[in-house]
């Protein structure tokens, strides 16, 4: 079943941008959300630690790419694993003090990180590294795919820059989905879930709670770092305002809509956060209305599908499958 789903996913990813309503650019943005929400789901959905600060790890990944491409002449593709590593280390370091916190307190501290990140990026002392509050333009750089606008030749096919970024994002997204799936179905995944469901029970079963919490944080942050890196490559541009605190909230919204503790729902979560704002604007452009529509839609989703899209699907499908089993 998984293999079929995966194959269907690959086909869908290949054809989606040909469908006018989505297009390469929106499709790639959704891919960025997909990867970040996937990562957030590992720490929040599977390990039970609420993070309201994953936008900050995206900023770390994004700035890693921006600085390496412009200052050190590193090819954009090679900056992606480095961004994952840097954000992962940041996530690990952040995960250590976070061990002492749980629930609401952890959520607050991570949100503090999200709020502080733009200011940190604009901090005078880091100016030599981050260019202060000013932008970093990657556009036109030789190290960027097609310099940020030219066609890119991949395996003999000429692709537009946007299409190339789209495939790059979803290609990486798919790999990361498989990695997450492999990780979570094994012993590590069981340990994560044990920590989420009861730390005491997990500890008494021999699970190293602290190690698993920090590990989950590090992996999750490295996913966000990759997402941030891809975002910067896609727009060929980085600045502090592009990683506002709101981004972290958006990611958590995506994870909740997806269904915490589900990998397949992440697709729905990413689609929700990418396309709902457009839909809200479609209803009305009057000042203040789109934000209200967005909020109302979110409340509705949580009311109707308290365990996210994945949970809703499970509830719909389970009665059918159990009947199948009981009959046979």
């Amino acid at each position, binding site marked *: 079943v998984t293999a079929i789903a995966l194959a269907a996913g690959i086909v869908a990813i290949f054809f989606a941008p040909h469908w006018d309503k989505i297009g390469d650019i929106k499709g790639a943005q959704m891919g960025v959300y997909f990867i970040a929400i996937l990562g957030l789901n590992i720490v929040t959905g599977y390990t039970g630690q609420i993070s309201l600060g994953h936008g900050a790890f995206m900023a770390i990944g994004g700035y890693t790419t921006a600085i390496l491409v412009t200052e050190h002449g590193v090819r954009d593709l090679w900056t992606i694993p480095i961004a994952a590593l840097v954000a992962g280390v940041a996530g690990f370091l952040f995960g250590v003090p976070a061990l002492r916190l749980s629930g609401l307190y952890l959520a607050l501290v991570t949100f503090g990180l999200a709020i502080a990140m733009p200011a940190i990026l604009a901090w005078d002392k880091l100016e030599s590294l981050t260019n202060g509050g000013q932008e970093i333009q990657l556009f036109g750089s030789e190290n960027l795919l097609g310099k940020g606008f030219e066609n890119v030749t991949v395996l003999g096919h000429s692709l*537009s820059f946007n299409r190339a970024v789209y495939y790059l994002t979803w290609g990486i997204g798919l790999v990361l989905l498989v990695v997450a799936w492999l990780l979570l179905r094994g012993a590590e995944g069981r340990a994560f879930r044990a920590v989420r469901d009861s730390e005491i029970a997990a500890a008494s079963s021999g699970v190293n709670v602290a190690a698993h919490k920090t590990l989950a944080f590090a992996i999750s942050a490295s996913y966000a770092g990759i997402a941030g890196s891809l975002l910067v490559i896609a727009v060929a541009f980085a600045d502090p305002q592009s990683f506002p605190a709101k981004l972290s909230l958006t990611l958590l919204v995506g994870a909740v809509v997806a269904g915490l503790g589900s990998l397949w729902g992440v697709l729905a979560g990413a689609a929700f956060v990418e396309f709902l704002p457009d839909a809200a604007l479609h209803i009305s452009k009057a000042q203040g209305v789109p*934000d209200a529509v967005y909020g109302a839609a979110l409340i509705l989703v949580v009311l109707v599908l308290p365990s996210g899209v994945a949970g809703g699907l499970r509830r719909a499908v389970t009665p059918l499958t159990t009947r199948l089993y009981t009959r046979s």
Partner: protein
Amino acid sequence: VPVRRIVLLIPAALLVLGIPVALGSNAADPGLTPTSIHIGGTTPLTGSAQAFQSVAKGAEAYFKYVNARGGVNKRKINYEYLDDEYTPSKTVSQTRILVEDKDVFAIFNSLGTEQNEAIRPYLNTKHVPQIFAATGATSFGRDYRQYPWTIAYQPTYIAEGAMYGNYIRRTMPQAKIAILYQDDSYGADLIKGLERGLGPRKGNIVSKVGYSATDDNVQSQIARLRSSKASILMLFSTPKFTIQAYQYVNGLGWKPKIFVNAVSSASNVMILSSSRGQNKRVEGSISIVFLKDPNDPKWNRDKGVLLYRKIMKRYQPKGNAKDVYNMYGMSAAFTFVDALKHAGKNPTRQSLMNAVLRLSERNNPFLLPGMSIRTSATDHYPLDQARLERWQNGRWISFGGLLKARS
């Protein structure tokens, strides 16, 4: 002689064959049909900066008004603005969608300094006009050699800062000055202009405290500025933070003379800042003005303001006609239409850009009387005049004559 005839026929045949080739190579730029011209831009329709969206909506209303009168050279102007949430990375992706998926002819009136900086290299590489960027950052008028497809609209922030500096140097040369500023190139330009205007008095600046556009509030910044004991406070901040700043200044019992930058001095924002007259710290504030203020009763019989109200009522009925940003958008749209008229019957991106750089507009009904818009190959500053104004009893009173606002 048949041979000669054939020889004569060859150039004729080439000519006939050549015409379609020539027409083909001269194919219209994207976004142009015989009956329409499609332009686009970005604006914050959602999020914390959404107060600025009237800049797009006022322009939209004016284009609808022009379209109802037959458009420009029989072309209707289709102005499509997308939401960028005031987030520069979104500005980039929405602008790419407009240019590559929606084939717009030009980008018009996109809002924000960082936002316009983010898309500038892209648009110039693609040779897409970036017309009347809604920002006063000096770079947009100064760096035209590097970015020939880009031009802004309003007076620059450096020029604005210099007007305040000049005024302070002349009237309050001893006063100590504190500055609240947005920590980006917009804030930096205003400070640079202020220092230029103060000249030898720039040492009077005793405190500068910045905030980030993504901050929640400026309470601690105001507290720090107050401790400098300055008697003049410059608010180089966007509306949300300006409104907060007035509240905090009042709450702390501080009584400085306040200068508020034009970005936040729309009378509808000032009325909010003053809590509808409750907050006395707003009284006597000084700013600059270049648009007619639709809330000022002195324009009640003015043709431009009457036209503005008529257009708002008919084409933006859900909009708030008291919102001065609509007036800004309408003024920019008026100048755009003016340029389009001069770009030829079948404009190209190049001919539109040429027309934008040959403006001589004296009849813009939405600008203060006597103002003119002039541009040339070497003058990329469309609006370069303004007056000083003082907030008194719930409205702006301008004083002094039209001043040159050039940096």
